[in-house]
């Protein structure tokens, strides 16, 4: 049982980008990739956006055993996607798969303010999936991808699959430890332009949770508010446990959104994968930031002159 295709003889995660300008270009890469997996008897999975999935489905023979997953459900949260994929991959390996092939896609919905967290996802998975015999292609529609997205795609994927069948190393690729160690401030959330609704110095964890509950006027999904309460509580606990004084919580809210920042005077976690992967068994910490990332759709962690900040948003 050996690996096939471009990843034949490769150990670990063979991570490729597909930067397509047309459906023909996408199909030129995707169809041989999928049919090759099917021929080799490898688990072969499509997790493209709805439109691209339809294009690929139409180009494949009707009875081909390719699994189509909903890309939208898979890519709700970066840390959630890592957890779900790791579970999926572990299951296939346990069942004896010599290689798993997946073609996935991050679509234009995440090319806005959320992109930074997805760029970090793309970088982190080079490490997070490396224990599995995975060959994946991450498709990006260049007709909708902004310049920053294009640059980050090439910096986070070791190679690109070309329509002519070549697999080309990306010269600007950087290893995930380097990429993830750059914790630049994200684009400010529009809500942050106004004065915060709450600004609490040295909040207790109970204060922090209550501030979130108080900001909810019933128009957010109750589950989203409960999950934000979990995330904020963990972020504040992390600041006290691993950060430095002073700890400060600020909260902004509108009718349908809540944004919270938790800042401490330290320099943030040393582990570049903090938040995206659980570290340790929970006895010595290491789960808090991961849970915050699992419980909240939009998380950003960054350093600036004021220290280390984690920003969490719901709605």
């Amino acid at each position, binding site marked *: 049982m050996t690996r096939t295709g471009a990843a034949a003889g490769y150990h670990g995660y063979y991570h490729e980008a597909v930067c397509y300008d047309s459906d023909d270009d996408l199909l030129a890469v995707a169809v041989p990739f999928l049919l090759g997996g099917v021929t080799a008897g490898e688990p072969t999975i499509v997790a493209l956006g709805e439109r691209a999935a339809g294009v690929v489905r139409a180009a494949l023979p009707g009875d081909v055993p390719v699994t189509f997953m909903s890309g939208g459900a898979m890519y709700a949260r970066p840390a959630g996607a890592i*957890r779900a994929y790791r579970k999926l991959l572990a299951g296939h390996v346990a069942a004896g798969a010599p290689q798993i092939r997946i073609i996935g896609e991050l679509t234009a919905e995440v090319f806005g303010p959320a992109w930074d967290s997805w760029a970090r996802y793309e970088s982190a998975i080079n490490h997070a999936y490396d224990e599995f015999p995975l060959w994946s292609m991450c498709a990006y529609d260049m007709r909708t991808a902004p310049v920053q997205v294009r640059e980050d795609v090439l910096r986070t994927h070791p190679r690109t699959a070309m329509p002519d069948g070549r697999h080309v190393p990306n010269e600007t690729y950087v290893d995930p430890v380097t990429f993830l160690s750059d914790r630049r401030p994200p684009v400010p959330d529009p809500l942050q332009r106004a004065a915060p609704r709450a600004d609490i110095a040295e909040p*207790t*964890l*109970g204060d922090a*949770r209550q501030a979130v509950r108080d900001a909810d006027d019933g128009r957010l999904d*109750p*589950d989203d508010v*409960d*999950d934000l*309460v*979990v995330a904020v*509580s*963990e972020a504040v*606990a992390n600041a*006290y*446990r691993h950060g430095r004084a002073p700890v400060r919580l600020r909260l902004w809210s509108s009718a349908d959104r809540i944004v919270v920042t938790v800042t401490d005077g330290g320099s943030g976690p040393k582990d570049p994968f903090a938040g995206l992967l659980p570290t340790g068994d*929970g*006895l010595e910490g290491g*789960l*808090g930031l991961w*849970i915050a990332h*699992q*419980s909240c759709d939009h998380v950003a962690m960054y350093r600036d002159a004021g220290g280390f900040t984690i920003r969490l948003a719901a709605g």
Partner: protein
Amino acid sequence: MRRPRKSSRRGRPIGWLLLRGEQCHGVRRMRPAPKAGHECWSYEDQGLFDAYARRCVDQALAAGERVWFVPSQHADVTGLPGGDAVRVIRFAEAYATHEVVDPARQVAAYAAATEDALAAGFTGFRVVADVTPLVRTDEQRDAFARYEYVIGRYMRHHPMSAVCAYNRGELGERAVAELACLHESSHAAGVSFQLHPGATSAEAVLEGELDLSAEDLFATALRRTDLDRADGEVVVDATGLRFIDHRALLALQRYAESQRTTAVLRTPLGAVARLAGLLDLPHVRVEAAR
């Protein structure tokens, strides 16, 4: 209506560690009381506690209950009503203060006292006690904490209630917190949660909020319960739980694993089920409660 009469048991040693330990569970509540009135009062100001104790005694008398009042060593408790209704017990008379409480024997002693009170025509039995001298050492505190938990269940089934007072200045905040969290409610004890018994030994009630501040206090509290397996599961009624973090869920998992059981956590908080799902806890099952 109260019909006081002389107790046939009068004249025996009155210190609760010295009482005879006969089992006496004949008179039970029709159904377990949702709140039996087992409260912890943590204090540093003697005068404030004395005033509160006095109010509790007055309330109990007004309710037709018999009261045992065990004041602090330095308490000023003159002027209490006399007669059969109130018995003031001085530590110096009743206790060997190096004693380590035997939880089962102590529950039996209070069961007998409750029966006595009912037989004498009182509506119930109330204890207001400063038990600081009984929890000074680690061994004493561990035994007394186990006792606090099991007497709570007796109170749910029988017309007994209690205020257990601890001198925080003398014992320290941590020691008081260990005891306080095993009551139905606590005053000034610095605890954010209460873990107290359900109707049976297979059920506990968990209320409040558990986060970093409760980190190992909760694990210690769980070890002091008498949660016992029933069909391989114990139930933690968390209807009154406002928040629980991953550390507390992991503590529950470790406790259940050590007892070779499954803890069923019943809570209306959907976030708890999602959090437990992330943590993959084989010995904890979260069920939705209304």
